[in-house]
């Protein structure tokens, strides 16, 4: 692939990024505004010797993805909030059984079936959709370039940590077009799941220390592969032993939480010397950047903190910022989801205000500017 500029939609860029990361299996069920991802994959997978399956429903789609991943293929699916609600069962299973996969949610508006316009209403669903103390990674792109690169990052993180990764796009970004210079393959770092280094007879499916990621063998290569969605011990045996529960649930968290320096990513704009800081992510961060530009013209000093990885939430850095500034404005296209994390993180040490929009339209830079002035 030579370096060439292309005009891509977000949904196309996500697909191409996943392909560049090595995804060769896609299973999905059509839903606006994510359908273009299925369309691209339906065309591209056969070209690359991969597999595209349109399944009978959302649960079948995530199940097919998990099966493919167990077979050793990097696998993904794409949907929108209502589809993710159905997929929650499979995602939770992947968390417990530690099956790598990329799940794209092109977010739309409203509860229930909702509507097809953009939103950021599934941030908490990404984290808490499945049952239990769910530990996943979730990424939030803000441009077409990031749709491409975060799809790669998402596949890599899912492989490295054996965890489902949820890429939170939205209906606006999914259909927006922007120029992107596609990199050559040697510029792309790809990662693979840890593989067993022991002989098949010595392999234990979940053999890792309390912070570790166990090696994963493929089905059909002589190893006793146990992928278990029940509570289990290191051998992958079904367990009802409280010590096994404690060890496993802690390890599923620790393998992420002891690697925050590797996993977390955020962008900071003009934080130093800022009186007020906007916390915004995804498409809204672009309105925030425009608002900062407008505020600067009016003599205000405003910065931006943009989580690129939303889950795990970048608490450490945000807590530091909270101690230095006079106020934080959280702008998001929902009723106030990330603001809960910001409040939890800053522990009342700084005033935190929210700017919310839930009508399917983008938050406008002028709305952010007006709110900043109100905060003074």
């Amino acid at each position: 692939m030579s370096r060439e500029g292309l005009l891509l939609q977000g949904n196309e860029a996500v697909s191409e990024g996943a392909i560049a990361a090595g995804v060769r299996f896609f299973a999905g069920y059509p839903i606006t505004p994510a359908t273009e991802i299925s369309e691209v994959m339906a065309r591209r997978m056969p070209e690359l010797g991969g597999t595209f399956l349109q399944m009978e429903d959302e649960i079948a789609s995530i199940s097919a993805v998990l099966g493919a991943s167990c077979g050793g293929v990097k696998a993904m699916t794409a949907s929108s909030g209502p589809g993710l609600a159905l997929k929650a069962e499979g995602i939770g299973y992947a968390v417990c059984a530690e099956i790598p996969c990329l799940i794209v949610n092109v977010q739309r508006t409203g509860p229930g079936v909702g509507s097809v316009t953009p939103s950021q209403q599934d941030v908490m669903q990404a984290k808490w959709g499945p049952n239990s103390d769910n530990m996943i990674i979730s990424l939030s792109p803000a441009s077409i370039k990031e749709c491409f690169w975060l799809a790669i990052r998402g596949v890599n993180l899912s492989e490295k940590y054996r965890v489902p990764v949820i890429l939170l796009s939205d209906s606006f970004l999914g259909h927006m077009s922007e120029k992107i210079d596609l990199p050559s393959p040697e510029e792309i770092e790809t990662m693979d799941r840890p593989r067993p280094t022991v002989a098949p007879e010595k392999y234990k499916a979940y053999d890792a220390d309390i912070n570790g990621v166990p090696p994963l063998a493929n089905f059909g290569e002589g190893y006793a592969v146990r992928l278990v969605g029940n509570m289990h011990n290191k051998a992958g045996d079904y367990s009802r032993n409280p010590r096994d529960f404690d060890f496993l649930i802690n390890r599923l968290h620790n393998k992420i939480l002891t690697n925050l320096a590797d996993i977390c990513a955020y962008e900071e704009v003009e934080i130093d010397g800022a009186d007020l800081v906007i916390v915004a992510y995804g498409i809204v961060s672009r309105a925030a950047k425009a608002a900062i530009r407008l505020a600067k013209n009016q003599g205000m000093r405003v910065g931006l903190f943009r989580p690129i990885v939303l889950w795990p939430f970048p608490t450490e850095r945000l807590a530091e910022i909270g101690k230095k500034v006079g106020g934080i404005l959280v702008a998001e296209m929902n009723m106030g989801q990330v603001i809960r994390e910001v409040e939890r993180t800053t522990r009342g040490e700084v005033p935190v205000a929210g700017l919310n929009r839930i009508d399917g339209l983008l938050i406008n830079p002028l709305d952010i500017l007006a709110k900043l002035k109100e905060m003074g």
Partner: protein
Amino acid sequence: MTTEIRLSGSGGQGLLFIGRILAEAAGVFEGKNAVQSTSYGGQVRGGSSRSDVLISPAEEEIDFPEVMDADLLLAMNQEAADEYGGKVKQSGVVILDTTFVKQPPKTRGRIIAYPFTLKTKERLGSALPTNVVVLAVISQIGALVGKEALVRAIKKRSPKGKDEINLQALNLGFELVKTGVLQRDGDDERELH
């Protein structure tokens, strides 16, 4: 300096198509920054449709991807003219297709009014490529992008068998600007007032 272009009208008028052509011509073939977005639900024939394109020099990043105050507004129906006419800069230009827009909107911008759809049908035998005629006009009036880049983007993005008629439409748009007919027929706007 970012140039903000809003293309508005009805679903089926091909506004998303020319928005993408414009963004591709400017972004990919002329090396500028370009963002194109669309309001949802307009892709089916009949509904309202809007496509925003923002173009900036290569060294200048585009932050907010929607038009705030348009430098160029195209309105291909009355509803769009009325809705967006007020969101145009003082220095902006409003291009109306008088085949459908009978009342000029309240706007700060300079109005260019011409029956694009009617004239395209007369000249090319079909009203379908009106969008490309208008694209050529907008590109020149806003000095947005050169003809060569437009030709490349049209060849790349036209459905099979449609590139020839689209290139004819592009030439017609260039001719309308060159011959000054738009300014002359722009007198229509007085009748409209």
